[in-house]
Structures are given as structure tokens and as C-alpha cells.
């Protein structure tokens, strides 16, 4: 035997260890696969040996190979063997291997339950530690169910090292076995105030994760977290708490006000990580929705954050500012932001600044003069993508506010004059879009121009030809308008007619440049106008006054049309929009038709003025080009005030997706109010059958909606829906009676859904008692099909799986070969714990012998003593004395005579049999504490003198106390 051991260790010396393996793999770069397959063969040999050290070494190497992508599932059983080694060195490797290689479908996991339980209760904290760590990676629903209780006990372990691990792993257990949440929650809550910061942070972590998913159930913890937030100095904990409050504030608006103060302090403090700052700002933006006033008072602080060197923080602050703007502070904030625009580095941030400024002003600007000057100032920005946005805003203001037109026109004229500054560097420069607006405004409101001639000249500069086509087109068209104005001025004056003729000549000289343009739109407009001017020149040469008639070409005011205007037009009686006017045309035809109808809508006015030659036959390429141009034209058309490119994109996107999820659109605007909470409650009450019905209904609704929409847009193809149809997407896309439920967003398999358990108010709170039963087969035959059943009493019920009747038995999940014992756990729910009780039960099973099998039955009684409702809970002496002082507890006492055992034995007995813990011991006097599963405190003062033991006891439930004392008495009378 000794020789064998020596041989084993000599063998070991020649075995490869992990380092050798790694080195070997690195040295066999060319034939790595071959080398590893020989290594695996060696490992297989090593695993066959009895020596656990060899096995552990092999398993360690396998773990490495597993990472390289090799299948090691065949060694699962060996991993379990190493895990169950009594030596920490090997156990550690075993658990590591298990945590890397095991997953839910690994069948050997079932075998580990008892080993893990043993390790969890090991006196060595590091054994417990590795078991917990390992378990966190491969916990299955079965393991969670079987071990939940053990882990729950560890949450009150004396060592913080274990406590914190146990607390964290509970989250995994909750996910796998949601029933454990309710019994574990009180203890978890206690851990929030654990003296050890690590444990505390673990508890905060777990509760935050839980609360984030189902915030409503955790509202009652808000005061506790509030206290933690103001007292904790651990940034990691703070981050989690701020996150938690982010989830809670929508549900409890009052929280918002209280949070502002501590959050401001956090932002102020230089010590905190920049992440805390970021999260703080994020939380403030959430509070802003419910309590704008309280956030507004911190405006300066937030403005300071704009100077932060971290871009993420600047963006957050910007977001927040956007929400805070009011009539009063608008100008001030925008002024500050404008300063930042100049300083800002990085185009993303600058563009973000720009859009925010425009957004802020477009919604709340009351001083339009000021706004126009801001917009003009913004055009100084180089390389921004948002020229478009600025342009549309300029148009918007100029069209809508008559009073400022003169000012706007003057500004725009300057812009046109300085166009070279805007178009300076590159073609791609997005800012040149503003010239589009400038040209249009100058043309349309040319009566306000002081020097129309100069502007006309500016608009016809050769450099214009380098601008994008759609801008040139506007230039040309508006040059014609300006021309009309100039003519009127010149003819009205008594000067000689040559001046007017010179003006015409200017156009005739410059326009050919545009006639040659490769852009069809420009070409078309330029040739039209050129012909017109040539004709005018002829008339001028005959001394005919033309100004009046030329102006008449552009008569009429362009009024802004609200985006929703079309919708407000009532459908005339007898008109059914759902009926096809013609038979549905085929694909290409409908496109053509659509284009025509769009053309009519967009160019209606132009056509009435100029008899534009209609192309009857254009080749495909040109068609596409023209469509592009029109699209751009349409986007920029001042008739459609809000047709910014982004909104168009959104609209098109939503149209092309026939059934956007109704819940998606709801989320966009539904306020998170009490209403939501109510609906959430209702939702929970609906049963599954109902859910199915709803789904069907929704399907139907979607169908209907689809048809309705098609009716709206008539025979047009998707893209051709004119902007007049553009309505608030959110409202249109929503079926009338859609229910705001979060069912649809959530994956039905989402484990967090099962954790939506109301932890505060459950009127019929059931408490659980886990009964662990050890079955031992003492006969010589095989026992199988065991079924465990208990006759429920009113007070205590065996928990049966869903769908089982109240008298069905539970199948014991194992079979027993002769001489083997195994343990099964059953959960009872108990309502009243004051009285002890006995439950009658039966165990049925089949005894299988070689030739026959018989069905047998065993009756038993389960005795639930009051002690079994007590949980060993440590208590600190100051908390203990506070408890006694509170006066809520009622007293009772007990005298035991003739006890002749040492005092510490006596205490140990009480601790062991009756689940008490010693709070303090002084000589022959000790105070002890325990707690019931329903939270009753139980305090004992044990004194001994001359073989007499006196126990003074206090508890807030006298009935329970009496029964426990009786049971203690019984324990001592038996010894």
C-alpha cells in the first residue's frame, strides 16, 4: 500500500502540470491540435488514477483546454469528484472547473446537491466561499430550490466574507426559484444595514437589481435607501442607489423633491467619481419630468457641467438644460449655450448643442427678432450637419411672423451677399442649406428689401452655380421674383427706361449659366425665366410698362399650413375613402400616378404661372433623378412647416412598417403616473386565457388599421404620401383601445417577470417551513415510486406544484437501492405559528424484489413544534437591550430543577435544540435571542445556581413564548 502511494507521487512528478501544458501548446504552434489530442489522452489516463492530486491536476488542465474551445463535457463526473475532495487545494480547482464547464443541461449537477450543501456548512469559510462562487455560475432551478434555505442561513453567517457572498448569490437563486424571494426578503432587507460595508454593498446590489425590474414592490424601501445615500461614502454603492432612485421616482413623485438636495451635494463634491456625476445628472433629468421647479433652481450648477472635460457629462447636462428652459431664463440659457458653441470641440457635441439650441428656441422663443439673429449667428458654424434645420427654422419664423419680416429679409440679404463665407471650403458643407432659406425669404418678401438690385446681383453671381442643385433652383426662381420687384421700383421712378432694360440685360447675361446646369430642375426653371425676361426686354424696348404684369405673376400670399390641417378637413358625407377610385393599378403604373399627383400638389402654384412643358417621355434614369430633386424640394418646401428631414425619415419609416407595435408608440408619450401603476395591477389580475384573447383581438385590430391607412393615402404608393398627410405619428399609429401593458415588450421567458412579487402588503401572508426528510431503505429490496402525502390542516398546507389537487401526493425524486438513504425536502406553508401541531401523512411506495413488486404504505406523523418556527438569528447586545427597553415584550418565566450539567452545555443545548443564539454571557448568567419566521422577537435570560436553572423570557407573542418554554422544559426533562 505504502509503495503504491510512493509510486503515485513519483508518477506525479513526471505528469505534466498546467504550466507544462501551456508551455507545450506554445511550443507546438504548427501542430497544436495534434499535441492537444495527445495531452487529452494523457489526461484521460490521469483521471483513471485514484490519486486525487493527479485528478485535480488533470481537471485543471482540462479547464484550460475548455477555454481553448475543446469539449470536456465527458469529464463532468471527474470534476464532481475533485469538487468533493476534502482538501481545499483540490476543491478549489474542482469548483473552478465546474463553474467554467457546467451549464443547466449538465446532468451530473444533480449529484452535487449534497456535496454543495456540505461545503456550504463547512467550518472553513473558504470552503463555503468557493462553493458559493461556483454555485453562482451553474445554479439550476433544482439546485436553487434545494439550497435556497442553506444559503438563506448563510446570509446571517458570522463572517462578513460569507455573508456578502450569500447575499449576492441570492439574486441568482431568486431568478431560478422565485418562490424563495418572499421568505428571504426580510433578511435581505436587514443586510442593508449590515455593519460590514461589503455586505451592505452586496445587499444594495441585489435589491437594486430586483427593484429595477419591478420598482413598485420596493417603494417602501425608499426611506432606507435615502438614508444610505446620504450616509454612504462608497461610490459603488452610491451609483447603484442613484440608479435605483431613477427607477423609483416615476412611481412616487414625492421622492423627486427629496432627492434634489443630496444629488446636488454629490455633484458638488470633488471626491466623487465622474461616473457619479453622470448618473446624478441622469437622475435629475428624471426628476425634472415630475418636479421641474426643484431642478430649475440648480441651473447654474448644471451650466457649470457644460464646462466639464468629459463629453458624456456635457451631453447629459445639455439634455437637462433643454428640459429646464422657461420663458424667463430662455435668453440667458441660450446665450450661455451660444458661448459654448464657439468653444465646443468635436463635431458631435457641437451639432448636439446646435440642435438643442434650435429645439429650445423653436418651442419657446417669444422674441422672434432675437431668434433670427441667433439663427444667423449659428450659420457661422462650419461643418455642421444641421444647415437644414437652421434653414427650416428661418423659413418658419419669416413666414409666420409678419412683424419681423423686414428684419429677417435684411439679415438674409446680408447672408446672400456674404454667401462666399458660407460656401467657402467644401461642397459638402452642410451650412450652405441656409442659403436656400435666405434666397427664398428675399424673393418672397422682396418688398422689404432696401436694395433689391444689390441682392438680385448677389443671387446671380457665377459662384452660385457651385451650390447644390436644389438651392440653385430656388435662387433662379426667386431671382425672377426679385426681378419683378426691381422692375416695379425702376418703372415707378421717373428715371429713364434704360435702367430697367439694364436689369433685364443682367438676367439675360447671367441666366444662361443656369440653363446649362446639369440639374434638371435648375435647367427647367432657368430656361422658363430666360424666355420670360427676353420677352419682357422686347416689350421694354417698345417702351411698354411691364412691371405691373410681371408682379402679377407672383401675386398672392403664401400662408403657413399647419401639419395637421389636412386631418381637420371633415370628410364630406357620402364619400367613402376606403373605396378604390380605379382598380388598384399595377406596381409601375401606381408609381407613375403617384408622382403625378405629388407633382400637382407641390408645384400647383408654379404650374399656374408658367406653362411648364410636360415631359411625356423621359428615360428611367432621369425619372429617378427628378424624383430625388422633388423629394428634396418637398422637404424644403416652405409650405410644410415642419418637414425637417429627420421627421420625414421617421414618417417614412413608420409607414413602411405596416404594424408598428402599439406599445412602442405608447411608450413615447405615456406619462409614468399612478395610472400606469393601476394598469399594471389590473394586468396582473388578468389570467392567461385572457391574455390569449387579447392577442387575437390585437391581431384583428392591426388588420383593420392597415386597411384604414391604405384608404387614407388612396392609390398612392408609400413614398408618395404628401406631407399634408403628416400627422402626429404617435396618435395615428395607435389602435383606439390598445391597452398599455408591458406584456408585449417583455420576453415571456424573462426570469425577472417571475420576481414581480409584492413584498409589502400581502393580507394572507403564508410563512414557509421546509421539512427535510431522510428516507433510508433498511430492507434488502429496491424501493421506488415513493409518494409523499400529508393531510393538510387549516393552518398548515403542503405546497404542491401548480395544477395538483389539494390531496395529491408529491413524488419523491429518487429511488432507493437497499441500504441507501437520501434526503428530500418538502415545503409547508403555515399561517399561525403560535401553537405546535401534528400533521398526519402517508408514504406509498413500491418494493421491488427480483421476481415481484408490491405496493406498500407507511403512515407517519409530522410534529411541528413551536421551536421549528424559530430561526437562529444573531443579535448585537445594544440592539438587544433596546429591544428589552422598548416594553413591547411580555414576560414569562420558567424554573428547571435538578439540572446538573455545566452552564455552557446547557446554553449549547438551548442553542442547538431551540434555535437560539447567545447575545452575551457573564459568569452564570446569559442572554439569548431568537426570532420567529413571522418576526417575533424572543429574548431569554438564563441564570443558574445550585442545579436550578431559571429562565426569564420575553416575547411579543405570549402564546408562542409559553409553548417554546414548554418545549425547552421537555428537552431538559428528557436528559
Amino acid at each position, binding site marked *: 500500500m505504502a509503495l503504491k502511494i510512493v509510486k503515485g507521487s513519483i508518477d506525479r512528478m513526471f505528469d505534466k502540470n498546467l504550466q507544462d501544458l501551456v508551455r507545450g501548446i506554445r511550443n507546438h504552434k504548427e501542430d497544436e491540435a495534434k499535441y492537444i489530442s495527445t495531452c487529452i489522452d494523457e489526461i484521460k489516463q490521469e483521471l483513471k488514477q485514484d490519486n486525487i492530486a493527479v485528478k485535480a491536476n488533470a481537471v485543471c488542465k482540462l479547464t484550460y483546454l475548455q477555454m481553448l474551445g475543446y469539449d470536456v*463535457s465527458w469529464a463532468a463526473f471527474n470534476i464532481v469528484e475533485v469538487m468533493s475532495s476534502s482538501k481545499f487545494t483540490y476543491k478549489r480547482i474542482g469548483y473552478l472547473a465546474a463553474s467554467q464547464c457546467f451549464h443547466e443541461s449538465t446532468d451530473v449537477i444533480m449529484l452535487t446537491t449534497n456535496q454543495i450543501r456540505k461545503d456550504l456548512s463547512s467550518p472553513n469559510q473558504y470552503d463555503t466561499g468557493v462553493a458559493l462562487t461556483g454555485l453562482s455560475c*451553474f445554479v439550476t432551478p433544482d439546485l436553487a430550490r434545494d439550497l435556497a434555505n442553506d444559503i438563506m442561513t448563510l446570509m446571517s453567517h458570522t463572517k462578513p466574507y460569507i455573508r456578502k457572498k450569500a447575499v449576492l448569490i441570492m439574486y441568482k437563486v431568486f431568478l431560478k426559484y422565485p418562490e424563495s424571494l418572499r421568505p428571504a426578503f426580510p433578511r435581505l432587507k436587514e443586510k442593508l444595514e449590515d455593519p460590514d460595508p461589503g455586505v451592505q454593498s452586496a445587499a444594495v446590489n441585489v435589491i437594486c437589481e430586483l427593484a429595477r425590474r419591478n420598482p413598485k414592490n420596493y417603494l417602501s424601501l425608499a426611506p432606507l435607501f435615502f438614508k444610505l445615500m446620504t450616509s454612504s461614502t462608497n461610490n459603488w454603492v452610491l451609483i447603484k442607489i442613484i440608479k435605483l432612485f431613477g427607477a423609483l421616482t416615476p412611481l412616487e413623485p414625492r421622492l423627486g423633491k427629496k432627492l434634489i438636495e443630496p444629488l446636488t451635494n454629490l455633484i458638488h463634491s470633488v471626491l466623487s467619481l465622474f461616473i457619479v456625476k453622470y448618473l446624478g445628472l441622469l437622475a435629475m433629468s428624471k426628476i425634472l419630468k415630475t418636479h421641474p421647479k426643484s431642478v430649475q433652481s440648480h441651473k447654474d450648477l448644471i451650466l457649470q457641467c457644460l464646462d466639464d472635460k468629459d463629453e458624456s457629462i456635457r451631453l447629459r447636462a445639455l439634455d437637462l438644460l433643454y428640459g429646464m428652459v422657461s420663458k424667463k431664463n430662455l435668453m440667458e440659457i441660450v446665450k450661455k449655450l451660444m458661448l459654448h458653441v464657439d468653444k465646443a470641440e468635436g463635431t458631435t457635441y457641437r451639432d448636439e448643442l446646435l440642435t438643442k439650441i434650435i429645439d429650445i428656441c423653436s418651442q419657446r422663443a417669444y422674441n422672434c427678432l432675437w431668434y433670427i439673429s441667433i439663427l444667423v449667428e449659428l450659420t457661422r458654424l462650419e461643418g455642421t450637419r444641421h444647415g437644414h434645420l437652421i434653414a427650416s427654422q428661418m423659413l418658419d419664423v419669416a413666414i409666420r411672423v409678419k412683424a419681423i419680416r423686414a428684419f429677417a429679409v435684411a439679415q438674409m440679404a446680408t447672408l446672400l451677399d456674404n454667401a462666399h463665407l458660407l460656401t467657402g471650403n467644401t461642397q459638402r458643407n452642410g451650412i450652405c442649406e441656409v442659403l436656400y432659406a435666405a434666397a427664398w425669404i428675399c424673393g418672397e418678401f422682396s418688398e422689404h428689401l432696401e436694395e433689391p438690385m444689390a441682392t438680385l446681383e448677389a443671387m446671380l453671381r457665377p459662384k452660385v452655380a457651385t451650390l447644390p442643385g436644389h438651392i440653385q433652383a430656388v435662387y433662379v426662381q426667386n431671382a425672377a421674383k426679385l426681378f419683378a420687384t426691381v422692375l416695379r421700383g425702376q418703372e415707378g421712378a421717373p428715371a429713364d427706361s434704360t435702367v430697367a432694360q439694364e436689369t433685364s440685360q443682367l438676367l439675360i447675361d447671367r441666366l444662361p449659366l443656369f440653363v446649362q446646369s446639369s440639374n434638371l430642375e435648375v435647367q427647367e426653371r432657368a430656361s422658363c425665366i430666360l424666355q420670360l425676361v427676353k420677352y419682357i426686354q422686347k416689350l421694354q424696348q417698345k417702351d411698354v410698362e411691364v412691371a405691373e404684369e410681371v408682379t402679377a405673376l407672383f401675386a398672392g400670399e403664401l400662408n403657413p399650413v399647419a401639419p395637421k390641417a389636412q386631418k381637420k378637413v371633415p370628410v364630406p358625407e357620402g364619400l367613402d375613402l376606403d373605396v378604390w377610385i380605379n382598380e388598384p393599378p399595377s406596381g409601375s403604373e401606381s408609381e407613375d400616378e403617384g408622382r403625378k399627383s405629388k407633382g400637382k400638389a407641390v408645384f400647383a402654384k408654379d404650374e399656374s404661372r408658367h406653362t411648364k412643358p410636360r415631359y411625356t417621355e423621359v428615360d428611367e434614369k432621369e425619372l429617378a433623378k427628378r424624383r430625388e430633386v422633388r423629394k428634396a424640394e418637398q422637404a424644403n418646401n416652405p409650405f410644410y412647416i415642419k418637414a425637417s428631414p429627420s421627421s420625414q425619415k421617421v414618417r417614412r419609416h413608420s409607414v413602411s412598417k405596416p404594424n408598428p407595435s402599439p406599445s412602442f408608440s405608447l411608450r413615447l408619450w405615456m406619462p409614468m403616473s399612478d395610472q400606469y401603476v393601476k394598469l399594471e395591477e389590473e394586468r396582473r389580475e388578468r389570467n392567461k386565457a385572457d391574455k390569449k384573447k387579447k392577442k387575437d383581438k390585437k391581431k384583428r385590430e392591426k388588420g383593420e388599421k392597415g386597411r384604414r391607412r391604405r384608404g387614407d393615402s388612396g392609390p398612392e404608393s408609400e413614398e408618395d404620401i404628401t406631407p399634408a398627410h403628416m400627422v402626429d405619428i404617435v396618435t395615428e399609429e395607435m389602435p383606439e383601445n390598445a391597452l398599455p401593458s408591458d406584456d408585449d415588450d417583455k420576453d415571456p421567458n424573462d426570469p425577472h417577470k417571475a420576481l414581480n412579487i409584492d413584498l409589502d402588503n400581502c393580507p394572507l401572508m403564508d410563512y414557509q417551513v421546509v421539512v427535510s426528510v431522510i428516507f433510508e431503505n433498511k430492507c434488502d429490496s429496491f424501493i421506488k415510486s415513493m409518494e409523499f402525502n400529508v393531510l393538510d390542516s387549516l393552518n398548515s398546507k403542503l405546497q404542491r406544484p401548480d395544477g395538483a389537487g389539494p390531496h395529491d401526493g408529491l413524488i419523491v425524486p429518487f429511488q432507493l437501492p437497499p441500504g441507501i438513504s437520501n434526503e428530500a425536502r418538502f415545503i409547508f406553508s403555515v399561517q399561525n405559528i403560535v401553537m405546535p401541531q401534528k400533521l398526519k401523512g402517508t408514504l406509498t411506495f413500491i418494493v421491488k424484489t427480483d421476481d415481484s413488486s408490491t405496493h406498500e404504505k407507511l403512515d407517519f406523523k409530522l410534529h411541528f413544534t413551536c421551536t421549528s418556527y424559530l430561526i437562529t438569528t444573531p443579535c448585537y447586545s445594544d440592539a438587544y437591550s433596546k429591544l428589552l427597553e422598548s416594553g413591547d415584550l411580555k414576560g414569562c418565566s420558567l424554573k428547571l430543577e435538578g439540572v446538573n450539567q455545566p452552564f455552557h452545555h446547557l446554553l449549547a443545548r438551548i442553542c442547538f435544540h431551540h434555535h437560539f443564539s447567545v447575545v452575551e454571557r457573564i459568569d452564570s448568567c446569559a442572554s439569548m435571542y431568537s426570532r420567529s419566521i413571522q418576526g417575533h422577537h424572543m429574548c431569554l435570560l438564563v441564570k443558574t445556581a445550585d442545579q436550578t436553572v431559571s429562565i426569564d423570557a420575553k416575547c411579543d407573542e405570549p402564546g408562542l413564548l409559553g409553548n417554546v418554554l414548554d418545549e425547552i422544559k421537555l428537552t431538559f426533562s428528557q436528559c
Partner: protein
Amino acid sequence: MQFMLLFSRQGKLRLQKWYVPLSDKERKKISRDLVQTILARKPKMCSFLEWRDLKIVYKRYASLYFCCAVEDQDNELITLEIIHRYVELLDKYFGSVCELDIIFNFEKAYFILDEFLLGGEAQETSKKNVLKAIEQADLLQEVCGLCPR
């Protein structure tokens, strides 16, 4: 956190920790995809990326990439902080850590990670405590190693 991967510039996996139960096949596919995606990114690109329905947070330390996958609602910055803290821990334990340390002592790297994170959540925020726990466990291991077999 859903999982953590460590891989080299050559795309070799150096450490992997999965906090969600997935089959080997899925794990392999995910890590292959991710390693490719991240290695293709330029050095100055953002450390965060959206990948499937997860957020990936990664950072390169010398020749090693540290990569974590977190859920949509999780904070990227704190994840970055976790990565950094782990690197600091490795650094303290090995004494200016290099890739080879992790290759040859990969089980130690795991033990450190397990003391720092549990079930994907930060378990101990004090560096001192993590290292103390590791040292004591190591001590226990040495003692055990000397025990007569």
C-alpha cells in the same frame, strides 16, 4: 453582467467567465463573433458598442483586451470601472501583470475574479479585502499541499 472575456490581440481567448447558463456551442459562437468585432475596431473608437441586445464594454490593456457584456439598462461606465478594478487587482497580485502571468496562472486569475465579482455583480469594492481573501485562501492551499497524502 452577462459574461467577461479576456483575449489577446491575436484573438486568442485568455479567460472567460459566463454568468448566464449557455451551452458550449453558444458560448463559442458568441466569443468568436465578439473577438472578431472588437479586434476590427480602431484604437480611438469608443469603448462601448451595442451588440445583439447587449451592451459590450471593452478596454485594451497592453496586448490584452478585457471585454464585458452587460444588459441594456446597465451602466457602461461602471462596467469600465469594474474592468479597471480587475486589472488593478491582477496587477497588485502578480506585480505589474503581463499576458504571460494570466496564461500560466490562469486559475489564479479566475480566483481573483471570483473574489471580486459574484454572479456578475461586484462583490467586494475594497481592493485590500479581495487581495486579503486571495492570500489567505492561497495560504490554506499551500498548507494543504504540504499535508501528508
